[in-house]
């Protein structure tokens, strides 16, 4: 009987396997530009974008408008979870042409590792230094070269349930003492003073660390600490953390520490909108979801308003935060085209549309005010007050924008140990200072806008 595995079949199988291996090793086909077949074809560049509630709108207002207005460059959007997939992709020399990152800290890390392209030449060509506010433009400078442009300007304010406040006859607080006093009154009335959560986002603890440092100890002291002139375990910082801890222990946040730590975004926003909790110390990104919880479309019809986070002496302080940055990959084959797209993306027209149409935060660029038509007046007021504060030097520093990564992670993770009584505020900040000093010595602290 002839065996099924004949010499011919055996050779055939081997050839097929060889072909498969060789196919895997084959180089990618030359691009049209390289082959010179179609020099008139538009250059394609790639942008990675995470899928969020606003991302379709952002693509429509930024990418689609860019592709429609010229025929030299086509921007292709790929939906990717950018946070975790970018780093290995860039390290492998792949990834998108335009690199979106979580903030200047991430951009500086990649810039120092040689993964991003210095953009000084494009900044000169497209006038980016004039387009951005000075402090914002300089945030992207690492070792004298520009590596990132800031997007989504953020700040933290005190949102309050206007309907409940009016019903109860309460006035929004204008300084820290008033806020703490009001919280006691609200609790006595059977309501929860502050909405909040940490189970779905314990990184959100950094909102509180940063705000209490800026509002209690003052932004000047935070600045001095960031440039290494005073330690982070300065008594004023300790006091700030103790005040916040005291509020947490009293159950001012979500009724109890345990419920605060078990709640998620849905629960705490619902509690805030329905009036179960009446204040919310949150960032301007709240505007992206407030429409789902407040207003005429809801069963309760409650309304919201805002005041600056109450500082110790009542001076309005707006902490600067950036929700992300944009850079050009070092391995981009078409960096100038990527810079063209960035110029379009950061134009005041597009930024204005991102706010008014997408409820997204604007980049810190000049001239956006002219394109804010249709934006909720309350948000316009926040942007206006924020810009005034920036001009007058009344700005503070958010952790995610100005603190180096290890210090940031430590501050928001270990804060819960102060709440649970596992360490004191002093011990917490002493260790934070040790970590910060190491990062400062290693040159890992992002550029700090001077005062």
């Amino acid at each position: 009987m002839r065996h099924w595995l004949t010499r011919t079949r055996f050779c055939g199988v081997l050839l097929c396997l060889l072909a498969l291996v060789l196919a895997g090793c084959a180089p990618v086909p030359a691009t049209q530009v390289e082959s010179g077949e179609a020099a008139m074809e538009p250059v394609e560049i790639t942008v990675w974008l995470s899928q969020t509630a606003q991302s379709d709108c952002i693509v429509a207002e930024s990418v689609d408008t860019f592709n429609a207005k010229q025929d030299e460059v086509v921007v292709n959007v790929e939906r990717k979870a950018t946070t975790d997939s970018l780093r290995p992709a860039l390290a492998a020399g792949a990834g998108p042409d335009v690199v979106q990152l979580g903030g200047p800290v991430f951009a500086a890390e990649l810039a120092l590792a040689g993964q991003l392209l210095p953009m000084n030449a494009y900044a000169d060509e497209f006038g980016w230094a004039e387009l951005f506010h000075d402090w914002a433009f300089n945030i992207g400078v690492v070792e004298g070269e520009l590596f990132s442009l800031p997007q989504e300007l953020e700040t933290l304010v005190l949102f309050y349930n206007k309907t409940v406040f009016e019903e109860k006859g309460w006035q929004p607080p204008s300084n820290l003492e008033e806020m703490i006093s009001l919280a006691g009154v609200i609790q006595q009335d059977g309501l929860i003073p502050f909405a909040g959560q940490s189970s779905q986002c314990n990184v959100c603890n950094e909102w509180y660390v940063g705000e209490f440092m800026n509002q209690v100890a003052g932004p000047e002291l935070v600045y001095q600490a960031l440039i290494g002139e005073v330690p982070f375990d300065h008594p004023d910082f300790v006091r700030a953390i103790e005040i916040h801890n005291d509020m947490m222990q009293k159950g001012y946040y979500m009724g109890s520490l345990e419920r605060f730590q078990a709640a998620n975004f849905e629960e705490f926003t619902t509690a805030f909108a329905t009036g179960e909790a009446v204040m919310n110390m949150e960032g301007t990104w709240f505007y992206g979801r407030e429409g789902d919880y407040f207003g005429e479309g809801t069963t309760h019809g409650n309304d919201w308003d805002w005041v600056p986070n109450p500082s110790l002496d009542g001076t309005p302080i707006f902490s600067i935060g950036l929700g992300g940055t944009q850079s050009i990959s070092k391995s981009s084959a078409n960096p100038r085209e990527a810079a063209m797209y960035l110029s379009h993306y950061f134009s005041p027209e597009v930024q204005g549309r991102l706010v008014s149409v997408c409820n997204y935060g604007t980049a810190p660029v000049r001239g956006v005010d002219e394109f804010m038509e249709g934006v909720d007046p309350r948000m316009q007021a926040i942007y206006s007050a924020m810009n005034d504060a920036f001009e007058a030097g009344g700005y503070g520093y958010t952790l995610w924008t100005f603190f180096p990564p290890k210090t940031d992670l430590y501050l928001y993770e270990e804060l819960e140990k102060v709440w649970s009584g596992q360490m004191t505020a002093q011990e917490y900040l002493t260790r934070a200072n040790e970590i910060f000093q190491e990062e400062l010595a290693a040159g890992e602290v992002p550029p700090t806008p001077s005062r």
Partner: protein
Amino acid sequence: MTANPSIQDTSSRRTSFLGKGMEVRRGLLAWALIIPITLVHLVVVVGPGISGLYYALTDWSGIGKAEFIGLGNFVELFTEDLNFRAAFRHNLFWMAFFLTVPMIMALSAASLLAQIRRGAMVIRSMFYLPYVLPSIVSAFTWSMLLNPSLGIGAALDKIGIKGLDHPWLGDFRTALASIAFADNWHWWGFLSILFLTAMQSIPVDLYDAAKMDGANRWQQFRNVTLPGIRPTILFMLLMTAIWSFLSFDYVWILTQGGPSGASELVSSHLYKQAFLRFEAGYAAAIGLTVSLMAGCIVGGFTILRRRGWEI
């Protein structure tokens, strides 16, 4: 009997030659088929594994250049990192929990299921269903069920059963056990089906003989069922011990290691070091340490097997 010995001799030698040729060809084919997956394995497992050994000895941030720092990461890990120690203790709790609670539940359920004939398939499917659900779905479901104002506790409170509307995931005293409870929900059903399958391979004669000897249900279970499925139990104990060091998804989805580090496992600690602190070298050292622990567990089982244990 053969008429012509010379013909037989030639034929035998020829058959032998053909057999050897066939064997060689089969061997070559086996190699040819295994080479592609071996190459892939070398690239995606062995390569990163070896590079992980190197990076564990560096201060690599995850990108860019890595500076060799010798055993610096391990010194920090074992002498300074209190969070790693806490996470390791939590992992020991986790391992103890999963080596006992789901095992007992699964064995009990399997032995009961083995006696059911009618509707057995439906019940088995119900037990198995949670295992095939994505962990993101199960975890989110449990985060809602354990929520003090929306979950089971709140519902029971409304009908007069008090005290269960506790923020189980928000209390540092109950967070880890609550996550283990949720993870166990998806795990024990799978174990019970596995044990049931093993039980069905035990000869019925053994039970008949036990009954004739007057053994009651418990004695049958202890003296027939358990010895009969011992290899399966021991294998699952081994795998559970190893997997307990790899658990990540439920912890990350439900609490991200909080509150105040109360549910931090070594895996979530590792993730934070690599992707939030940008200390990939240090994370590699943690990963290597965990691998060594898993290696010790496997080594322990191997020693027991050599000593005659049926594992």
